């Protein structure tokens, strides 16, 4: 999996999905505005130059700020994978709920163009040969991922409740 973009600490949802596009809500329509103010990266995304499964490597507190789910659905729409040193709480929860692949990797070191091998417990940088431990998501979140996202998870609950009545 190739690193397509590297980012600093504290990347806010205003950078990932600027507020002025918040009237656009549908997951099918948000991907066009991913990183809209980063004209170069947004241009590459729109020109389909970033293949599915490409990786964004970020620092700490990725996705801080607003709870806007567009910041997750716009990345999910391009099938990106986010490897960050840490994530802000609401962003991480939204990512789990919508099935955006997020990897918590506190020591990650990579530059654009690197190829990463992402496993359950380690991320390996194939260029440098270095390996970086992954912090597993808590089981509470993993169970939502395993169900196929929060919509499916909630639907299962609803059906159980109806059966119980």
């Amino acid at each position, binding site marked *: 999996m190739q690193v397509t973009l590297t980012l600093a600490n504290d990347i806010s949802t205003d*950078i990932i999905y600027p*507020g*002025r596009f*918040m009237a656009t809500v549908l997951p099918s329509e948000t991907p066009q505005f991913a990183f809209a103010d980063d004209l170069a990266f947004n241009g590459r995304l729109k020109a389909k130059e970033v293949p599915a499964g490409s990786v964004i490597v970020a620092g700490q*507190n990725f996705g801080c700020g607003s709870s806007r789910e567009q910041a997750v659905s716009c990345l999910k729409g391009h099938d990106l994978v986010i490897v960050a040193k840490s994530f802000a709480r609401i962003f991480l929860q*939204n990512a789990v709920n919508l099935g955006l692949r997020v990897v918590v990797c506190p020591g990650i070191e990579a530059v654009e163009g690197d190829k990463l091998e992402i496993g359950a417990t380690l991320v390996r940088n194939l260029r440098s040969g270095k390996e970086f431990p992954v912090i597993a998501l808590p089981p509470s979140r993993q169970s939502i991922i395993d169900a196929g996202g929060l919509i499916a998870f*909630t639907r299962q609950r609803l059906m159980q409740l109806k059966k119980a009545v």
Partner: protein
Amino acid sequence: MTLAEKILARASGVPYVKPGDVVEPRVDLAMSHENAALVLHQFHEIFKGLAFEPQLWDPSKVAIIFDHRVPAESPKTASNQKRVREFASWQAISKFHDIRGDTGGICHQVLPENGYVRPGQVVVGTDSHTTSHGALGALAFGIGATEMASVWSLGRALNVEVPATIKVVVSGKFKPFVGPKDLILHLIGKITAQGANFKVLEFHGPTIRTMSTSGRLVLCNMSVEAGATAGIVPADAETARYLKEEAGVTEALDLVSPDADATYEAVIEIDASGLEPQIACPHTVDNVKPITAVAGKPIHQVVIGSCTNGRLDDLEVAAKIIRGKKVSSGTRMLVFPASGRIYRQALGKGYLGAFVQAGAVVMNPGCGPCLGVHEGALGDGEVALSTTNRNFKGRMGNPNSEVYLCSPAVAAASALKGVITDPREDH
């Protein structure tokens, strides 16, 4: 148990919880704003293919408040609002606040002033500043739209991990022109933008006990800027006074407080008497400096308002500084009261008149320029000084501009001079 633990345990029907436990608390209040349009879409997704109709678990516990883009700035927003309005009417959502001068306003002001939030409740909202409502002793946190759709269906938040709590103890009396906004900016600067990520900030100490609910709302509102899941002030006599006198609540309240032997992850002590006015500099909220470090910086736009500092006491402080004077000719000043009720009160007390006569533009209640959507955008290279809560790159609509954050007193004093100004200078 800490206050957050106690509230989560009760709401989940268990005697005891500790940090890391996974619970499914029942929700007492579920708030959305314009993004109810996305919640609605996801809500229908959940029910797709099921043999029963989409139905809110309890319409009386759902609140929808239009505030982010009011009046609508585009056909898209207007159509989304229309869809939500129709849904609110169909489901008979009584806590629906449309675009109106009497009952409208910013969600984080409309909820408290109508008495929708009570001590000990679990409140969720599709807005990160839902943390505000911890000011009334509730556990209030932000969630995404899909999670809200799940809450609408089940009335519970699923798979909530009990957060650890940091105790913040504040003592000492504020100096003149220093207040809650300076305190919370100082705290965020100290612990950083991720210092409380996945944790709760629980506020204690004599300074908090004597602080008005309005001030407590400022602290809890901005707790999320340190990454906190929630900020919370244990309910007390002031909470009861606010709910009774200002929100018209007549029922008995349950002023739940943390246990004396609660376990905190850390304790932070702050002496408020030593604080200067604080400024958060671009482009992160934790880039906080005392005003003396940035005084003299030219500013093109001053914004007073938002869910952080758009309440009556904020407008009062600013109006007293502005009255009879003129906004500097190189600076635009925008004032947007947090709710219709506050707008009318400020009108009655002459604050709005003072602003307009000084050359400020008074806008309708709502989020206004805070999130850079449809009013008060900045030009390339321009600098704003604002009483709002975020200064991220692009926050006010233009990534090539800068936003500094401050208290209403600093904003008003600075508007007169056209540069960042210490309000203590001339007063």
